[in-house]
């Protein structure tokens, strides 16, 4: 009796193991996107502020090293660089897991040009770079760039 129960249990375990085995779908190591500049198409457009935003990587982050990019704000009509009337905040966000990364540093380089340092993505997946225009601690408008890390 014990022997037949043992055989049944072993058969069941074998069947479960075979049918439940993982089938990994691997992704190759991430590389820097060819170009993230969106100036020409004005993909990141702030309607309430009449602004366009674009960004270009200076250093693409890796699993262990931080990166940096430069964000540019332009007038959509003239194309001239302009500073946003509101303060700029940049948030790195992983929407699937509902968490962000550590805070980045935003430095104004010149009119309409801002350098964003300490960019780090803590795990692979879909990340958002959220360019938020803030007033009194509240987000007035944000534009989101999405990338695969």
């Amino acid at each position, binding site marked *: 009796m014990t022997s037949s*129960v043992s055989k049944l*249990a072993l058969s069941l375990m074998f069947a479960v193991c075979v049918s439940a085995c993982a089938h990994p779908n*691997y992704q190759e190591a991430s590389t820097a996107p060819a170009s993230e500049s969106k100036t020409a198409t004005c993909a990141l457009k702030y309607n309430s502020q009449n602004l366009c935003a674009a960004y270009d990587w200076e250093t693409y982050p890796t699993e262990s090293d931080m990166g940096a990019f430069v964000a540019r704000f332009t007038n959509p009509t003239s194309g001239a660089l302009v500073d946003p009337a509101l303060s700029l905040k940049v948030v790195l966000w992983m*929407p699937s*897991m509902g*968490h962000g*990364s550590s805070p980045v540093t935003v430095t104004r380089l010149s009119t309409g040009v801002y350098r964003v340092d300490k960019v780090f993505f*803590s*795990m692979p*997946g879909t990340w958002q770079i959220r360019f938020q225009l803030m007033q009194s601690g509240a987000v007035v408008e944000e534009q989101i760039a999405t990338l695969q890390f």
Partner: protein
Amino acid sequence: MRSRCLNRALRLNVGALLLLVLVVSPQFALAAACCGGGLPVPALILGDEQANFSSSLTVSEIRTDVSANGVWKDRTNKENAETLRLDAAHIFRDRFQYGMSVPILRRERVNDSTGLGDVALNAGYEFLPEWDYHPIRPRGVGFLQLVLPTGRSIQEAGLLDQVDSRGRGFWALGVGSAFTKIRGKLDAIAIFDVHRSFNKSDADSPAGRINLKPGFGGTLSAGAGYTFGDVRLGAAASWIYDDAVAVSGAVSSEGSVTRWAVATLSAVYSPNDEWTGSLSYSDQTLLGAPTNTALARSLQVNVQKRWSR
């Protein structure tokens, strides 16, 4: 003749039960090594003792991340985690018991962080007692588990690589049951639970103040073992699921469900009725279709002291 058979059966059952007691903890290593998840394995007494105390050390290497759409990516800089977990359980009235689990975690990647994980309290009731050594009916212990948000959630982690996240960080209430059955030298165990994690408002995150809305989750675990003298060799598998965590406030997102599975092999040595030691290996990369999680391989050493009734 019948009496001799019964005595032999009782000896086998009691011996196997003693070994099975310890199997619960090392056999099911549920938490996703990156961010917690699932309900911790409850500190339960499934044998014939009055009380037990376990101490386990788990060393994990987090080697693979799986995205929300199921794409796997191996880490080039792997993360190491060590978990010291203390479990205690006590039968205070015939079929009623309570228990507690206290995990202390150390995570190391770019940064290094050590601290308390999610502490869990549980109460159990043996609704299917093993009084007559029924040939088929298992022993069943139902449990209610309360998880305290003592480990910081990944949403609130402040370090660059989020190694200061040591749990789910939510109040959670779970209900479940553990079943065990022993036939001769063969034993089987199954545990399932359903849990609900509760909302957290005005949490501090690097992005600003956020509100977190988790949902339901569940765990299904099953295992079997064979006893050779004082040694039991076992194998087990667990499937864990958690609803998405929706975020609102400074940043908003809907989140994605999290699920993964764990395969575990364990060897348990029980030289007497009071002490047991075990070694187990767990691998989260072998089974199931994981999504939105990090997968680890772990080695666990466990020592348990028991006090008989």
